[in-house]
């Protein structure tokens, strides 16, 4: 067994026995000739791996903020009541194990859960009762599962759309042998294709670096780990247009000379595994993958699927590579780029699902077509997923340059107040941003909008975010691991109502230190929304903190401090 097979091997045990036993750990450690603690380290990094026996049905209930606002607490209580189990506890029942999990990419259908990785949506207390009863009488989760395809709510007119158009296999690869890699790069450069995974890195530049790299091996990886809460745009592409992704990867391989490709799919999307696998098979059958593929001599490109195991940070490209190699998904140091030293030392390009899909559309339709759509600096269209307090949550393909107000109107937002763009690591927006255009010149959006109305508590939103980050931090850097915990302490203080404007200043200072000193994007951006919200929602904070200048009085919550003692004396 190779180290790179570790994740799959662990999945085998997890799927077969419901947990990974001591014996399994010892066996794997022996095969890999490493100490057991190394295997433990990997297992405990991923939250879908268990070291204790689980029930026949493992239920993962999504605790994202949208879910919280759509009845998470009631649904959670209902699961506990109906199954007689407690969340996060092992060994309470042969039948059920309950766990919370971060966003599973179904924000448009909350509350949602995965039962043995089959999704159930629009959960209510009644629905939970029905589901649990069905499971008890032996109806299998794949029958209970809901169809979770997100509604595509909006597509631009035919002459302006890019993604949601007719698709037939291999369109972008037609005549590839007569197109030079340079031609492909030039086309991408013309439309200034930028990465859609959040960092907006110029795609052609990445491919070109890898093309020119002298590494013996080259690898293309599709990042389908979409873990940013509130984001499900990649899911929709996998659901509707899996072929586009594969074509994009083939184009990339053609440019760089890669022979191996991986699609790293988050385990939360396991129900889409067969969709992708079937698409891959289809491509092999059309000779678009494999040896001498696309009718090009010596162009050999193989593609495989890797299922993640529950770790948001594995979406960070170097963490993803570590994970593929069979290690803990800790982001690498910024010493070398993956294009210089990536998967097993190869020159590796990692791109987002939407990036690959768009690349293939650019080649299919030609850069002229794409250039006719969008703004000066952002060409073509963008897929935006909308959730929260809107009547029409789902997928919106929009021309770059569309205003936020237009999107709010299309999605029928009700009293929009606090808008989260690009997930918790992104930006929060208020009314003054409504007329901004979504494009590089103005408001860059990674693809997700969570819309919260006036009745929603901003503190609750921020608390949910910080808790997400402090669980999902890989734990390597002090500033990220500890920083998120001390920000949570501030939220708790804010909730007690004993904060002054001094505390708000500290939040900004502390958050800035985290930003400056963390290794990867997680720690660099986890305090972003908190910091922004303080100025964007000044009125909200003015109500909950005491304003003061230099010599702030410190408030102390005596009632809370003696509560435990009073309770104990009453009891004894």
């Amino acid at each position: 067994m190779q180290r790179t097979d570790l994740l799959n091997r662990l999945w085998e045990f997890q799927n077969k026995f419901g947990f990974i036993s001591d014996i399994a750990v010892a066996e794997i450690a022996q095969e890999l000739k490493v100490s057991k603690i190394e295997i433990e380290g990997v297992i405990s990094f991923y939250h879908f791996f268990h070291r204790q026996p689980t029930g026949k049905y493992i239920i993962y209930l999504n605790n994202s903020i949208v879910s919280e606002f759509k009845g998470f607490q009631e649904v959670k209580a209902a699961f506990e009541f109906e199954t007689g189990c407690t969340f996060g506890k092992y060994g309470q029942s042969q039948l059920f194990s309950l766990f919370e999990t971060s966003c599973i990419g179904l924000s448009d259908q909350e509350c949602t859960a995965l039962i043995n990785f089959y999704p159930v949506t629009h959960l209510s207390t009644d629905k939970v009762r029905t589901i649990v009863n069905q499971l008890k009488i032996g109806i299998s989760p794949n029958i209970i599962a809901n169809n979770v395809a997100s509604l595509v709510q909006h597509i631009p007119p035919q002459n302006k759309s890019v993604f949601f158009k007719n698709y037939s296999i291999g369109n972008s690869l037609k005549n590839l042998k007569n197109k030079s890699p340079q031609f492909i790069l030039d086309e991408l450069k013309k439309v200034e294709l930028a990465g859609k995974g959040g960092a907006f890195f110029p795609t052609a530049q990445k491919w070109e670096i890898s093309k020119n790299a002298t590494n013996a091996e080259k690898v293309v990886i599709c990042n389908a780990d979409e873990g940013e809460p509130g984001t499900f745009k990649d899911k929709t592409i996998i659901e509707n247009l899996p072929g586009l992704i594969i074509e994009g990867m083939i184009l990339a391989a053609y440019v760089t000379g890669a022979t191996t490709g991986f699609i790293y799919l988050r385990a939360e999307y396991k129900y889409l595994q067969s969709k992708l696998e079937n698409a891959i098979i289809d491509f092999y059958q059309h000779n678009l993958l494999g040896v001498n593929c696309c009718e090009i001599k010596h162009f050999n490109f193989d593609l495989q699927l890797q299922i993640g195991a529950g770790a948001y940070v594995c979406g960070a490209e170097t963490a993803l590579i570590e994970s593929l190699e069979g290690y803990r998904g800790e982001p690498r140091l910024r010493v070398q780029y993956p294009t210089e030293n990536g998967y097993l030392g190869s020159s590796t390009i990692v791109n987002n699902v939407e990036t690959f899909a768009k690349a293939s559309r650019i080649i299919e339709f030609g850069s002229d077509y794409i250039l006719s759509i969008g703004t000066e600096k952002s060409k073509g269209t963008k897929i935006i997923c909308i959730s929260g307090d809107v009547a029409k949550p789902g997928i919106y393909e929009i021309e770059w340059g569309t205003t936020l107000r237009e999107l709010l109107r299309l999605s029928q937002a009700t009293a929009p107040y606090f808008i989260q763009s690009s997930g918790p690591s992104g930006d929060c927006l208020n009314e003054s941003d409504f007329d901004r255009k979504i494009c590089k010149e103005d408001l860059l959006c990674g693809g997700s909008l969570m819309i919260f109305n006036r009745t929603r508590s901003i503190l609750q939103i921020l608390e949910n975010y910080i808790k997400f980050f402090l669980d999902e931090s890989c734990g390597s850097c002090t500033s990220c691991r500890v920083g998120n915990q001390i920000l949570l302490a501030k939220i708790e203080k804010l909730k007690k109502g004993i904060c002054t404007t001094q505390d708000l200043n500290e939040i900004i200072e502390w958050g800035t230190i985290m930003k400056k000193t963390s290794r990867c994007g997680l720690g660099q951006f986890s305090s972003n929304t908190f910091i922004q919200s303080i100025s964007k929602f000044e009125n909200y904070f003015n109500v909950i903190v005491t304003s003061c200048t230099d010599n702030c009085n410190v408030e102390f919550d005596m009632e809370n401090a003696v509560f435990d003692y009073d309770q104990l004396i009453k009891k004894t």
Partner: protein
Amino acid sequence: MQNISFYIDGRLCTADKGLNLIEAAKRNGIFIPTLCHFKHLNPLGSCRVCSVNLNGNGIAGCTVFVEEGMNIEVNTPELLDNRKAILEMMFVEGNHFCPSCEKSGDCQMQNLGYETGIRYTRFPHLFVDRLVDARPERIVVNQNRCIKCKRCIEEIVTNDGYKVFNFTNKGKKTTVSIDYEQEAKLTAAQAEYAMQICPTGSILVKGKTFSKPFGNRIFDQGAEGKTVPFNKVNMNITKGRKMRIATTSLAGCFGCHMSLLDIDLGILDIIEVVEFHKSPLTDIKKFTERCDIGLVEGGCCNTDNIEVLREFRKNCDVLVSVGECAIWGGVPAIRNTIPLEECLREAYLDSLTSEGNATVIPNHEDIPKILNKVYSNHEVVKIDYHIPGCPPNANHIWSVVKNILFEEEYSINYPEFKYD
């Protein structure tokens, strides 16, 4: 190797191309503090203490390899503060009770605390209950002190090449765990090496630890600082009367008060320029006059402490937390990782000397209530200054007092700065 030139804080430096920045800086006489960086190890980039700016962007210094023309900032005010903040984060994440730590005086983390001048931690202490693991054969791992620098993970391997330590879990639960099977294979020398490379007191060797103090307290040498004459003060500031001092001991051990008196005859100089008002030293119980300065020893563990502290804030112009207990809870805060109920049950109901059903948890309207945890004074009222130490050195305390009252410049001597 090609010789290249680069800049640190605007100063021209030279080194071999590709040399690690920490080393390169050192060779040019510039010190960049680190905790995880270790000689020949590949950069770990975990502790973040060496944060610098490279061409304007923040990065861990240990992960930089110098190249021609690089522009590096090391000691800007912001970077100095960030570095200090990261150390403070380590102090609040773990449970560092230096006075009871075997490594105190030899500890690289403690030393950097002195180096960066941490008087108090700006962040709230997390007080998470952590394991002291004595299950291994040769070593004890005290998780309260581990800063997750990964040195041991990278460096400690058995003779047949197996790792002994590794990270487990992630996020706030990240822990450095031990492989007991592999640990048992370590030789005595290897175990001792593990203890040595650990920059904190997390890894200790069994037997060795407690039978004799190890190390020479390398960070702890030098003169204690000279006694300063206390009566030579700038009388222009004396308001035409002696300065008034109040002192109190809250949840402390009176050690800081002992230290106050520890200047021997110096006290005679002091009472020429100051007078003591409410204080255990005078036995004055109530404030009748406003005081210029209040010295508070100990933190707040019960409701009476809170009241006294609030009284002090009301009646003193300047309020100073003296000693670790006042600053962040100190030794009494050892209980902060354990729920109050468990503590009180153990102390009053379930202890060896309490007879079944015959004892109660003390409670009466006349006695103060115990707080859910020990609070630092600055969580309760505004504190103007902090004097670290357990206890702080007498000269140090009085120098600070003199400096505050008579507006004099005073720089703290390195050996006077103590957390233990």
